[in-house]
């Protein structure tokens, strides 16, 4: 017996007045709360585990690990530049300067890809392994690996918004999607700044 649900009889409700703007921005904000808390939780474990290992008289980093800051400094500078460029891209859209906006969005995505490449290269140089007794390798790979995924998602987000801009969805009147992508990107870069300091600088 076919089941007919109530809305099949009642029909869809009448359309509401136009939705308030900034839905994508609000949704991105909520999602970022979850993402930031994900990293906050992992950093909490990192700090706790590090303190426990040091208190027990062991060294936090295994002796075969060497962290050369150059690669991570370059990555930080690259992301910092990408933040400025992303902001510039939105400014360009606001001023209907579309060609420069596309260049800005493309450069931001490119710097993101360069970051992924740089961190993956650094993985090969650091000598970290997940099989250490202190648990530092697992933590470092969990935190930086999740951040790489976050950067990858950011590149896709920027790419999607760039295509929408290309299609005319965003303009001087409305840059909501781009603002959402920018917000995501800024938080991505902020998270890396914490990683850079907590994991690589303080070691």
């Amino acid at each position, binding site marked *: *017996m*076919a*089941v*007919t*649900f*109530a*809305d*099949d*009889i*009642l*029909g*869809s*409700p*009448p*359309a*509401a*007045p136009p*939705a*308030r703007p*900034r*839905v994508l921005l*609000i*949704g991105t904000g*909520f*999602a970022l*709360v*979850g*993402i*930031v*808390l*994900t*990293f*906050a*939780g*992992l950093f*909490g*474990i990192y700090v*706790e585990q590090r303190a*426990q290992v040091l208190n027990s008289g062991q060294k936090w980093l295994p002796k075969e690990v060497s962290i050369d800051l150059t690669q991570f400094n370059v990555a930080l500078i690259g992301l910092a530049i990408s933040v400025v460029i992303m902001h510039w891209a939105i400014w360009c859209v606001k001023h209907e300067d579309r060609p420069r906006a596309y260049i800005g969005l493309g450069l931001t995505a490119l710097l993101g890809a360069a970051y992924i490449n740089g961190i993956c290269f650094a993985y090969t140089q650091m000598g970290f392994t*997940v*099989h*250490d*007794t*202190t*648990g530092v*390798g*697992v*933590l470092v*790979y*969990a935190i930086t*690996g*999740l951040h790489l995924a976050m950067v990858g998602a950011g590149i896709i987000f920027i790419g999607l918004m760039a*295509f929408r801009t290309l*299609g005319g969805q965003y303009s001087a009147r409305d840059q909501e999607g781009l603002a959402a992508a920018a917000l995501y990107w800024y938080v991505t870069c902020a998270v890396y700044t914490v990683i850079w300091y907590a994991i690589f600088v303080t070691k």
Partner: protein
Amino acid sequence: MAMTETRPEAEAQTATPTTSSASGSGLPRPATGLAGLLGTGRHRSIGRLWIGTSLVFLVISGALGGVIGAERLKPETYNILNKDNFAQTLSLHGVAGVFLFALPILIGIATVVVPRQMGSHTIAFPRAAALAFWGYLVGGGMVVVSYLINGGPFGGNEKGVDLFLLSLAMVVASLVLASVCIATTIVGLRVKGLRLDRVPMFAWSMLVATAIWIASLGILFGLLVLLYIDHRYRTFVYAADDNISVWLRWTITSPQIFAMAIPVLGFVGDVVPVFGRTRARMHNVQLAAIGAFGGLSFGAWTYLTFAHPRLPETAIYIGAAFAILLPTLAFVAATAETLRAGRIRVRSPLLFGIAAMLLLLAGVVTGAIRVIHRFALVGTTADSSIIHFVAGATAIAAIGAIHYWWPHILTRPLREGLANLSALVLLVGVAALAIPDVVSGFLDEPAGSLYTNVRDGVTAMNAVSLAGGALVVLGVVLFVVNLAVSLARGGNDDEAIDPWEGHTLEWATDVSTVTVTSEAPLLDAREGSA
């Protein structure tokens, strides 16, 4: 680039199933059957999928609870299970109860109801909402499979444990995604005039709940990734099999367990004025109480308990356990005042709501008693009793919500007689299930394992608890029978769209004609035209 697909929002706007036909219009006919189900972006369909699937997981969790209850009849020896699969069964009972039933059923109800309460024809990000459901379905199925292949916490099959961590992470990510959709709907898709302090209480509670869930489940997701990497590469610094449950325990203990029940308060806040035939008294107090309850139920800060096992003895932990009593009592007082001032119609949603509120209050009181140091209840079955009080309250509120919002969820109303009986049986059942565990806690029965040196009275308490569990099963069976009868009766041509004379926008036949100037716009309209 050619745009060839129809956005779900547009689909929802254009869909008028019984009257409109795509034939002759040149538009593609909307997919029906399985294809329509898989590709749906309609919030009602997605919500129903959440509700139906979560009820299946309720059956699984309940059946496992029955086995555990039977095993505890002789708490010093294993009769049905052995030590390992007792721990696994208990673990799946908890995981399925919280992550596969309680949170998802609330998300399902909210997915159906909240957009209508906001006066919106769609949920925010309908494709993401659908993706969240399918992720939950696949992830939830894999969680169960992981236990079946001897995985999960305490599992002997390492690949099964890997699968458990991965699939639970998938479920958690899906719950976060669904929460984002609901929260965004509440904040971003309100009709004109519907300020945040005027949104229906259920929507407000869902906003608070989803914010807390996004934050705490975000932490849980990171934790699961860490455990997965550790376990997958067999490092075992963090995820030795016995440790996994320790890492996850904060999600089902006080105060985090109360986060699951935030929407219970919202449901009560919505039904009491309607069935009291009056306006909500102390509306702002109720809003603030729900906000404070939500804030104090954020328990992710206890996730480092593995490193600080004495955390429950700290002042902040004890203070939080007592502090959450205040908003709960404030909410109960405001509800009682509304009932006192009104002319009560006794209907099943009201009974479910009051039953859920009483059980939640009992859970919060037990949570406060549990942290009193001299009672030494932490780690005893008092922990289990809090979970059962809160999960019971959540289940009763969810079932009550299905009764209340049946025109949005079902075809026909549920039978009031069966519904009232079901509410009563569930109230008595959950109380009988949980209260003996508090007593057993005082008698030093540990949570989560069988033990020797069983003190007098524990076995009797466990028997009462099992009987309570049987009553809960009976209550759920009554609901399921009621539901099946309702569904079997098919279409509904003559029932009212607003059977309860509701106060909020989900009961409006035409939102565009309603002016929102208070938290009860339909009541305003009725009083204005009277």
